[in-house]
């Protein structure tokens, strides 16, 4: 469906539905409005999402809530150290009755896949998933199989220093459009959480308010948002700074820059604008860039000044 054919009301409608969906999720994931919007922006920007936080912070809840609100087919894989690639993509199983192999699709054949604790699995299993993310198809026994459309992955991972983890290699981190952290809820949100009903129950009650065609329209709309010259200048300055700064070992790759644009457009759409402003870029920059920029290792072990913070604080918006 092309954007031109949409009635104005319909576009406004989509926006309305989008915000309705965001509001729905907020009733389940309390006090995380910003993260919810970022996650939604990631979906609208047609990218995969990586959520990094401690266990029990609501990563899975967020993913499930998104799936329900969007009415997606939803699968979940819990990554463990003995997870085999076949457990992700599926395997051929011999059907004794018909005496032939049958492909039994793995959990990856779904619209929204929650890959829980992805860094607990061995690199082999990890790469099976990441390959699927990149190619949007899987190859089993020499046969390629298309994944359903759309295909989103929300992966969660525990912080690196936890025991028994296999860090994702840099090249694979790059495949996630965004990486967000949820963090502890604030006081009021936590209180609401504690005093409220069982979140699991509420999750089940979520309505699907943004069906797939609507989401696809929003995606198209986001892609067609306007990028003005001053804004592109700003993005280029950001990227150049990241490449020249000696605090970053590697700067943002062109793919990273493209991701930044994609995410900023999606954010602008959520903000109900038909053009992108620097604030959009600034809003998504930490989520888009942080896992792509590799910092000078700080010998004391704690994270120093965030690199993206440095970027935001050093690059002028207008020159």
């Amino acid at each position, binding site marked *: 469906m092309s954007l031109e054919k949409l009635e104005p009301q319909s576009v406004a409608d989509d926006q309305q539905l989008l915000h309705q969906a965001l509001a729905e999720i907020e009733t389940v994931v309390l006090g995380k409005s910003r993260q919810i919007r970022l996650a939604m922006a990631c979906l609208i920007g047609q990218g995969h999402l990586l959520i990094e936080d401690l266990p029990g912070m609501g990563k899975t809840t967020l993913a499930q809530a998104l799936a329900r609100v969007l009415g997606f087919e939803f699968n979940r894989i819990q990554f463990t150290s003995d997870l085999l690639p076949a457990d992700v993509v599926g395997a051929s199983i011999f059907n004794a009755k018909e005496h032939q192999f049958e492909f039994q699709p793995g959990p990856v054949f779904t619209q929204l896949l929650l890959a829980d604790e992805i860094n607990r699995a061995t690199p082999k299993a990890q790469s099976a998933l990441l390959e699927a993310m990149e190619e949007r198809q899987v190859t089993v026994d020499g046969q390629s199989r298309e994944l359903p459309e759309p295909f989103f992955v929300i992966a969660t991972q525990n912080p690196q220093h936890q025991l028994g983890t296999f860090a994702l290699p840099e090249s694979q981190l790059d495949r996630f459009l965004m990486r967000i952290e949820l963090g502890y809820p604030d006081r009021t949100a936590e209180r609401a959480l504690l005093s409220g009903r069982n979140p699991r129950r509420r999750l089940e009650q979520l309505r699907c308010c943004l069906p797939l065609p609507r989401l696809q329209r929003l995606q198209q709309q986001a892609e067609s948002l*306007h990028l*003005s010259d*001053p*804004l592109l200048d700003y993005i280029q300055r950001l990227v150049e700074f990241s490449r020249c700064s000696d605090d970053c070992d590697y700067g943002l790759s062109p793919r990273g820059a493209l991701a930044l644009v994609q995410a900023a457009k999606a954010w602008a759409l959520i903000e109900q604008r*038909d*053009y*992108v*402003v*620097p*604030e959009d870029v*600034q809003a998504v920059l930490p989520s888009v860039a942080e896992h792509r920029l590799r910092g000078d290792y700080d010998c004391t072990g704690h994270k120093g000044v965030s690199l993206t913070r440095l970027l*935001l*604080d*050093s*690059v*002028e*918006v*207008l020159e």
Partner: protein
Amino acid sequence: MNEPDYQIPRNGLAWLLAAMFGALLPHMLRLPVWVTLICLLCGVWKLMVYRGRWHGPNRPIRALLVFGGGAAVFAHYGTLAGPDAGSALLILGFCFKLIESRTRRDAFIVVILGYFVVAVSFFFDQSILLTLYLALVCVMVTAALLGLNQSVLHTRPRRTLRISLRIMGYSLPMMLVLFVLVPRIGPIWSLDLGQNRAKTGLSETISAGDIAQLSQSSELAFRVEFDPGSKVPPASERYWRALVLDNYDGHRWTRGLDLDQREQVDWQNNGNRWLTPPLSGSPTPLSRYDYQVMMEPTDQPWLFGLAWARSDTRGVGATRDFRLLLDKPVARPFRYRVSSTIGYTLDAAGLPAWLHRANLQLPDTDPLTRDLAQRLRRDSSSAADYVHRVLRYFNQQDFSYTLRPPLLSGDRVDQFLFESRRGFCSHYAGAFVFLMRAVGLPARIVAGYQGGELNPLGGYLLVHQFDAHAWVEVWLPQQGWVRFDPTAWVSPERVEQGLEQAMAQEGSFLEDSPLSPLRYRGSAWITQLRLSWDYLNYGWYRVMLGYDAKAQRELLSRLFDRVDLKLLATLLLSTIAALLLGLSWWIFRQSGLRSRPDPLLKLYRKLCRRLARKGLQPEVGEAPASFVRRAAESLPDQAVALQRIARQFELCLYAPSANERDPQLQRLRVQLRRLAL
């Protein structure tokens, strides 16, 4: 440095070679052949070194070149000083330095010498063509200097040339301002330009043939520009006196009396020292002419003027025979002012005995002529009557005017008057003076130029070498010196219309120079072209040579009341400062790729300044709208307006309506104007 800093960039070297050949070219015609040959050899040598074929000279060869060159110059000129020997030395040094130069420092010295060689060329010639040519050479030398300072890796000579042209373009306005405004001071020390180069022109002796030779030369002798109020004298009055010849040895006329010695010349008084008041009832009415003469170098001190000439130009004096004289030989184009009064009687009160005697000197020759003189004198009633009888004799007998007279020998005057009867001005003048002196009338030959071509473009006269002429002055009692031109009685066209008309039938006018445009005066467009070109040259000389302290003062006094050193200095400094400012504006304007600053950005900066007064400053990395919204929060009374402005900024900067930007911008301007901070 990642490149040896002393190495000469090839780019610079290439231009240095080009500049060398360019700078030497004007000198080649003038210098002895061997100097030219050595220069060419050096150039070729360096060229081969440049192309990597040969090696540079080693130490003994360098020493040989330097000392050998110096010795050769000394042997040739007998001196190492003076413009000729000096310039030869300079040029040899330039070439030697060029072949031995290996470092940037050496090459820099060659460049400096190059500028010197260019400047020295102007000693010998200052024509407009040479100046244009040397300007080109200057471009090359500058390109060489630029090339020396470019990177060794830079190998685009044409780019170097382009940049050096640009730099020169930047410098030219400043140069002109300096030329006009730098105070002109007189020579700091006196210099004697001992130049002994052959120049076409009058000589101190006249024998048969001299003036005929000059008649073959189409070179310019001098130009005369009459003052605005002054008329141009008719052709028959244009007798430009230069020399007086009063001694005849039977063969040639020479200057017997040396009246040009310094102490005998009136340097201060405009020649009034020898002046007697004009007699009342003088035969011709007085007419006065004021003019300036711009003469080509002659290497002689004689100047030209209509009788009776006075000049107030510095260094010009008047001799006892009422000629103008410069205190040194005219070595370069020279300009002087003259006032002439035609018809003024000179020495009417009588001649001093020594002068009288000198003007009666005759060798004991030519008996037939003496007989003729006695015969005619006997028939005459007075001296004046005698003069006229002689003139009528020339007119009525079978004399003819020719530039191809037969050779004479023995009693030359007799031979001329009674046998050949063919000759030109010096023959007639010589014979005439002989006839005068033979009967005791003081007389002398005057050599100079007669006539001149009027250039209608500038209203000035052009006097060429072929206008050279000789005529006669006879001292008559009560009338003083009276000019007679026997040639005019033989060939009136010569005086009235010039040599060309006089020679129309014979076809001998400029017969040796078939290419001279003067030969084709019949063709209107050639004449037009020639006169235009001369006018250009004339203007060039006027500006370049005539612009002295006096001209500077005159020019400036047209603009300012008082012209003094202080004014000059102020003018100079302020003009140069203005030029430099303009230049810097030009450099940064022209080369700055950034177009004029975005009006939106300007508005934002202005708003930032206004908000800064309220203690609000944008952080690094803060978007404009964010900043203005933050300001709105801390300035509640303007919050609404600021919110609106923030939105407007956002729209203008980032919204897709690029083609509607002007109205949007206008709206923003209005909003900003209404904002009361």
